[in-house]
């Protein structure tokens, strides 16, 4: 009988949940779907590994005092541009999939009282985490690859380790930011859908 209130209802405004609550749910979404999350993260990882290996190879060439011609410089710039594009496409694709396959879940959450910004927050945290760890491992793998394949050039005493660390940081930030940007579009679109449409969506 608790629901028997009389007269017109007073409609309140739904509270925004704190970041920590969204983080908790996002983290659990990742850990529970770990296999799926790892595949998504692998997209980021491969792209960033490629990028990092290009950066590291450049450092190795400098260290070996190879004469870098203008043509080679151009080639390396191309490789960086290519690897960036590979990362962007790979990350966007993974994030698009991971959001669209959960439209129904998003619709359900909205039915239960989730605000649009909570849904967006949830997916951005999730993609940010995946992006961060994917990029972290990708950057390490890329750097290790070059270190192992060009052992002589790297350990000849001239290698600029500081710059390698800077590149490592750049790659990690880039991977995380790209992941978040890639998820932003689909997450916003999904969150703005009327729940009925979101639940009707079949993929």
């Amino acid at each position: 009988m608790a629901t028997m209130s009389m007269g017109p209802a007073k409609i309140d405004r739904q509270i925004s949940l704190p970041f920590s609550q969204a983080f908790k749910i996002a983290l659990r979404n990742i850990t529970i779907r770990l296999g799926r999350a790892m595949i998504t993260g692998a997209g980021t990882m491969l792209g960033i590994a490629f990028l990092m290996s290009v950066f590291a190879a450049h450092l190795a060439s400098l260290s070996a005092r190879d004469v870098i011609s203008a043509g080679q410089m151009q080639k390396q710039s191309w490789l960086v541009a290519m690897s960036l594009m590979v990362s962007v496409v790979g990350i966007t694709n993974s994030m698009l999939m991971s959001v669209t396959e959960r439209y129904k879940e998003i619709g359900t959450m909205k039915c239960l009282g989730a605000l649009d910004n909570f849904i967006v927050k949830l997916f951005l945290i999730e993609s940010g985490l995946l992006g961060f760890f994917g990029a972290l491992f990708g950057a390490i793998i890329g750097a290790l690859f070059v270190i192992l394949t060009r052992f002589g050039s790297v350990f000849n005493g001239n290698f600029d380790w500081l710059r390698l660390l800077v590149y490592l940081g750049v790659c990690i930030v880039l991977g995380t930011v790209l992941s978040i940007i890639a998820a932003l579009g689909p997450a916003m679109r999904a969150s703005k859908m009327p729940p009925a449409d979101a639940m009707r969506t079949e993929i």
Partner: protein
Amino acid sequence: MAKQNDAMTGSKDGAPNAAESSMEATRPVQSGEAAGVGGLPVNGVPVNGAANGAHAADTTHAVAKSPNGTAGEDTYIGQEYIVRAKNIKKTFSVGGQEVHALRGVDIDIRRGEYISIMGPSGSGKSTLFNMIGGLDKPTDGTVFIDEVDMAQLDAFELAWLRCRKIGYIFQTFNLIPVMTALENITLPMIFAGASLDEQMEKGRKLLEQVGIAHRMHNKPNQLSGGQQQRVAIARSLANDPAIVLADEPTGNLDQKTGKEIIELLKKLNRESGVTIITATHDDKMLDVSDRIVWVSDGRIDKIKRRDEVDIKLGTLEGGVH
């Protein structure tokens, strides 16, 4: 096994407990039938007690037997309207063509009523259901929930309404697959800002109420369809809503389980006074409904009270009394 037990019972009078349990084990068919009538067969959530169940087993068409008969109706249905829909129209554009899902529907629903919206696929009943539940916006017309015009609400107020005032149940259950039964039920409470203690206490209570307290830590894919729907029902009640909207709640269930779910909904309707609105084409739903709304081709065909409906059901009702 059963024969052995019976023989033992015959020779030894000193083991009444064993005899009883063996008796129960040997008549699962009968008790199943009776339980489906009286209330919930699951986990000792007896609604009407054993005597009632045994009585119901005699009447073959127990469908007509509702827990309290018709006497209590006036006491639990309020006078005020919880839902009022005025001339709602909904037009979808599909491939450049306009499809009129609803062509002007008016409906008033009182607090505490159990309403079934019937109609074939494509009749617009699901669309109507979505409009009433604030899941979609009508192209034209207004929907009032508790005297509040839903079109006037912003996103925050609408979310609050969905969270606190309305509970949803779906044909495909729509539980969050990565969460346990208990977590699924506490999710709307998290959205409502309840404390962890409140969530756990209420969650457990609700799971007991729907008869699946023993499965609270199971994920949806470890539960049967009927159990999943029970979780969904518990979830819909998480924030004590005024209205529960059930879209084809028995659509993915077998006859017997569907009947149990219907009985459960009716029980909750009676006990907590929550208004229940279902979109369905399950005839079993007719009997527990206070009113039945037939929708066809985007319009309301007719609205009838249960006692006006269908001669066949009427005679069954008479047979029980």
